[in-house]
Each structure stands twice: as C-alpha cells, then as structure tokens.
C-alpha cells in the first residue's frame, strides 16, 4: 500500500478502480476537476450514465462509448427523463426491424438528415443507414442510443410545433451538447414542396416576388400537412422551412438546368461527337445503360439511369411514402457538367426532330418526387427524381436514397390529374427512350428486394412502364400485367439474375450487371417495329426502390 495515502484514501481509490475506471481515466478526470476548481462558478457536468440493468453488459467499454445523447437525459426533469427511458425500453423490446422502419419513416416525414442522428448518437453513419434501410443488426446499446434520440427528437419537434402555434420564437432545442454552436441542419426540399414548385415552373419559369411568396406559403403548408400538423405551425419546420430566397434559388437552378440541357441538345444536333462521361463512382449500382432506339448502339460507357421506385402500402399503417421517379433520356451525351449544384430536373426534348443518332442519353436526375406533366403536343417533360444526393450530372442519383413521404390524399389527386396529362405524343425514334412519368403509389417503400412491388395495386398498372436496373428485377414478380421489353446494350452479359417470373418479349440474352443494361417493362404496348422503343401512349410508371444506403 502506498504510504502517502491514508487507508481510507486507498480504499477509495481501490473502490474507484474496481468500479471500472482505469488509471488513465482517473488521471484525466483529476485533470478536469482541477481545471474546474480553478474556475469558480463552473457547474460540473453530471454524467448520468445509465446502462440497462437487464443487459448485464460489462460497462467498462460501454462507459467510453456513451454518446452525447445520454447526457441530455440529465438535462430533462426527472419525470420526462423517466418517461423517455420507458419509451426507449419499450422500443428495445420490439422487433428491431419494425422500429427501424418507424424511425426511417419519421425521418423522411420530417426531412431529417442522417447526419443529425450520427452527431447526436455517435453511431456510425454507414451502420445507421444499413440498419434503417436494410435491417442490419445493431447492438442493444447502440439501438438504445438511436431510440433515445428518436424519442427526444419527437419531443423536440412536438415542442417546435407547439411553440410555433403559440407564436413563441424559441430557439431550437440544442442537439449539441458541446460548446460549439448549434449547427442548423441543411435545408432540404421536401417532396410536397417540389411538387408544387414543378407545377409552378410549368406555368411560369420566372415568377415574380409576389408569386414566389405565394409559393412559399403553399410549400410550407404542404410540408406541415405532410408532417401531420396544422399549416399554421409553420415555424415548427425548423431548418426545413421554405423561404422566399430558397424558392428563388430553386427557380434559378431549374432555369440553369434547362439552359444547360438546351445547350447539350444544340451540341448533339450539330453533330458534335459526344463523349460519354463515366458514371460517378459514388453510385455504382444505380446507373443503367440503355441502348439507343435505333440500331446504333451506344458505347458501353453511355449511361442512362433511371430509377423506379415502387412502394407498397405499409401494413403497419405508417405514413405512406411516395416517391417519384423520373428519368428522361436525351439524345445527347453529357460532355460536361451542368452548372447546377443542386439536383436538376429532367426535361424532355421539346422538339421531336432531334437527331436520330443515338447518342447516349444523358440523364440528369432531379430530386423531385413529383409527377411529371406532359402537355399534349409538347413532348417536353419535367421530371423530378426522388433522389437526395445531387452529384455530377451524369451520375444518376439513387432515387431510393431518399424516399419521401406524403399524405395519401393529395397524392391521389395528383395521380389522377397527372394521369390525364399523360398522353404522350407519338415518339419519334429518338424520343423513344424518353420521358417517363412516374406516379406515386401510396405505399411504403421497403428496400428488401423481395418485398418490392408486392402490394402494388394492379389497377394502377393499366399501362405501366417500369425502368429499373436489372438488379431489381427480382422485385417485379407481381407485375403480371406487364410485358417486358428489354433494352440491352450491345454487349449483353450473363443471365438475368432474378427474372423467373418475368415475361420476356425479347428473348435476347439476359443482362446481369445492373450497370450494363436497362430493362424496361411495358404493358400492352405494341413494340413491334422497334423492339427497343417504348410506345408513347399513356402510362403510369412506377418506382422501384433501389437499396442504396
């Protein structure tokens, strides 16, 4: 025993050591305490770490891991803290995958970025993403952190909306315990707002300030409705509140996109050799290649991505999520990136006299999950893509990376209206791979391939065109009314991976690698003359979620 310490001090030190602290931790703590003592008036932080009793986890490592989220528990009054712990406990007993779906749906509904969860919980973002989207297992302690964040966030958001309704301009509850300033989440357009904006864009590409103000109101109201709150509680939207500036920027970006597409069209029209930019590396599994409508096949590198997301109704009655997919093909290749930093919308070629030369259709996917409108006689389409990550233009973004939820009612309405407008003019050959309109199914998206498309009501599939990557083909088991047209690249490879139940119109070789071919499904369309053409009658494409995260 050390001679410098009294027996009691030794006992105390031994007690500390046997409680799970190691020498290093004790020394660090001593340093902090001495620093605190140097500053009078500092309140020491309570470290109320509370591992679960029932889990019997050795807390030695658990202590180190404690995410900042647990510290917040101490900040609440005890009743609230106990209530929240009770809810977290309850969630921990439930089926983890079920809870993951609930949380994911909630995040989509309120447009919450994963980054926020990662910051608050200390979880690894990749692990979190996989757990939420694919059900990758997560240890109990980590799930506890996640559920704690979820429970607290619900409280925060409820508080935000309550404050909003009372007109209280409270600051956002701190979600960062450290001294650095609260980082407000990056604004993100919700699907409801984008729908409204695209419609407005169709009417008028350059709205005046008054019109923008109106749009601001409309969008915020729609976002509130999506979240299930009264439209008057707009301030509760927090960082996702739509402002006039944001609307202005959105229109400016769309105009820039259109100008860029026009420029590309001009390039193609004048016969410039198109070189294809390789797909961005960030999204390996989601780039599809399409063969040109005519006999000329594009080179391997030409890529055309489109995403189809299909949502089946959630059995648990969760908020139905709707996603729109848009893909458009232009008869131009992208030689350079368009000058937009956000997701861009797709426009069909306005003049059907574009070159029959089949260049690689470059697709610029927008993140807009709204239905495209096609004005009769004008084959231009505005298509938005429910993608969350804008990358370089040639990179088609994964639609499934963010699926947004919408209330079913507005969607149905939109669905019908869009349906009426979906009469497309006969495609010229160069437009065959053209615009696809996607509609939203009031359904919940599951990322498990086997679950996709299971519950799609066939009634909506009068004429359905589904474009997907071949890796998703396993999901098309229920599309009995769908014929399959396969558009393959000139170098088909392999066998179709999971196309057992699919009907093949084209008995060509199957394609395996998602990145090498485009598979398209058409219902009752006569595609006799051009097996690779998609006939232009009205259709309602659906979307298939591609698991990305």
């Amino acid at each position, binding site marked *: 025993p050390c001679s410098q310490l009294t027996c*009691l001090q030794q*006992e*105390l030190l031994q*007690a*500390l050591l*046997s409680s799970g602290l190691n020498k290093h931790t004790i020394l660090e703590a001593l340093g902090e305490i001495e620093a605190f003592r140097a500053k009078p008036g500092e309140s020491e932080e309570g470290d109320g770490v*509370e591992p*679960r*009793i029932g889990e019997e986890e050795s807390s030695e490592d658990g202590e180190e891991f404690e995410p900042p989220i647990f510290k917040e528990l101490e900040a609440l009054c005890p009743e609230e803290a106990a209530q929240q712990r009770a809810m977290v406990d309850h969630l921990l007993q439930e089926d983890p995958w079920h809870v993951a779906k609930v949380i994911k749906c909630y995040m989509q509904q309120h447009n919450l970025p994963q980054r926020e969860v990662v910051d608050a919980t200390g979880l690894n973002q990749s692990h979190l993403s996989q757990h939420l989207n694919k059900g990758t297992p997560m240890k109990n302690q980590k799930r506890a952190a996640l559920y704690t964040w979820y429970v607290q966030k619900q409280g925060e958001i409820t508080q935000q909306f309550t404050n909003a309704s009372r007109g209280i301009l409270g600051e956002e509850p701190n979600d960062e315990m450290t001294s650095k300033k609260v980082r407000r989440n990056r604004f993100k357009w919700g699907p409801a707002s984008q729908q409204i904006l695209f419609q407005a864009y169709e009417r008028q590409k350059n709205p005046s300030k008054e019109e923008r103000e109106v749009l601001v109101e409309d969008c915020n109201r729609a976002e509130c409705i999506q979240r299930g709150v009264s439209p008057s509680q707009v301030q509760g939207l927090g960082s996702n509140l739509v402002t006039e500036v944001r609307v202005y920027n959105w229109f400016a970006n769309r105009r820039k996109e259109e100008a860029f597409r026009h420029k590309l069209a001009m390039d193609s029209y004048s016969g410039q050799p198109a070189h294809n930019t390789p797909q961005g590396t960030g999204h390996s599994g989601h780039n599809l290649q399409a063969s040109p409508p005519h006999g000329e096949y594009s080179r391997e590198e030409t890529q055309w991505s489109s995403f189809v997301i299909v949502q089946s109704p959630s059995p648990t009655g969760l908020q139905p999520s709707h996603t729109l997919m848009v893909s458009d093909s232009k008869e131009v290749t992208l030689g350079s990136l368009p000058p937009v930093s956000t997701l861009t919308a797709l426009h069909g070629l306005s003049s059907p006299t574009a070159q029959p030369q089949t260049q690689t259709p470059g697709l610029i996917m927008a993140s807009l999950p709204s239905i495209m409108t096609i004005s009769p006689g004008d084959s231009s389409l505005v298509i938005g893509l429910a993608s969350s990550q804008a990358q370089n233009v040639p990179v088609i973004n994964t639609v499934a990376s963010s699926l947004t939820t919408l209330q079913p009612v507005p969607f149905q309405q939109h669905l019908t209206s869009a349906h009426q407008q979906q009469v497309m003019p006969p495609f010229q050959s160069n437009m065959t791979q053209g615009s696809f309109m996607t509609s939203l199914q009031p359904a919940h998206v599951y990322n498990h391939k086997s679950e996709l498309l299971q519950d799609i009501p066939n009634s909506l599939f009068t004429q359905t065109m589904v474009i997907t990557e071949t890796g998703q083909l396993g999901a098309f088991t229920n599309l009995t009314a769908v014929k399959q047209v396969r558009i393959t690249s000139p170098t088909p490879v392999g066998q179709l991976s999971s196309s057992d139940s699919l009907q093949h119109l084209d008995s060509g070789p199957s394609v395996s690698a998602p990145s090498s071919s485009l598979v398209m499904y058409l219902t009752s369309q006569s595609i006799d003359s051009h097996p690779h053409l998609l006939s232009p009658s009205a259709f309602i494409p659906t979307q298939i979620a591609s698991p990305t995260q």
Partner: protein
Amino acid sequence: MGIIHLIIYKERGQLLPNLKASGWIEVEGRDAIYKEFLFKDFNQAFGFMTRVALQSEKMDHHPEWFNVYNKVHITLSTHDCGGLSHRDVALADFIEQVVPF
C-alpha cells in the same frame, strides 16, 4: 428505466434462496431484504460503501443503509414498485461480490 416490476412469486423461489444463503434475510412487514456487514475498520467499511455507491449510481438504484464505524447495515427494496425488484437482486449480487472476505 422503464417500468420496474416486483419479482413475481415464481421467480422468488429461484432468486432469493441464493441470497438467503449468503445471509440476506427478509424484512418483517415490508417486501425487502436486509443484511449486516462487519469490517475490520472504518476505512474498509467505507471503501466497501464507496464501491457499492458507485455501482448504485450506475444502476440508478440505491440502497437504504446505515453505517457506524465498521458496521454497515443494508436494506434493499425498490420504491417504484413497493417491493423487491430485479434491481435489488442485482445490487445484492454485486454487494456479495465486493465484500472482502
């Protein structure tokens, strides 16, 4: 930590005999267990109490205890459910581990 339940009757038959074998007794008139500890001196007693205290903080479950010099009397019961719960059993187990022989 969620809802804390009393130890149901069946479980008592499994959990309590071990503790009773270690010297814990059931208190008359309330649903609790009790044990007295005797140490060599105050330091040892208080060192023991410190260990138990640190664990109690982690478990968020605190004992009723009395200490005079080298004696420590501990009563374990759960206030939220008005009787014995798993937390009491867990803490008792821990105490048994920590007591110096």
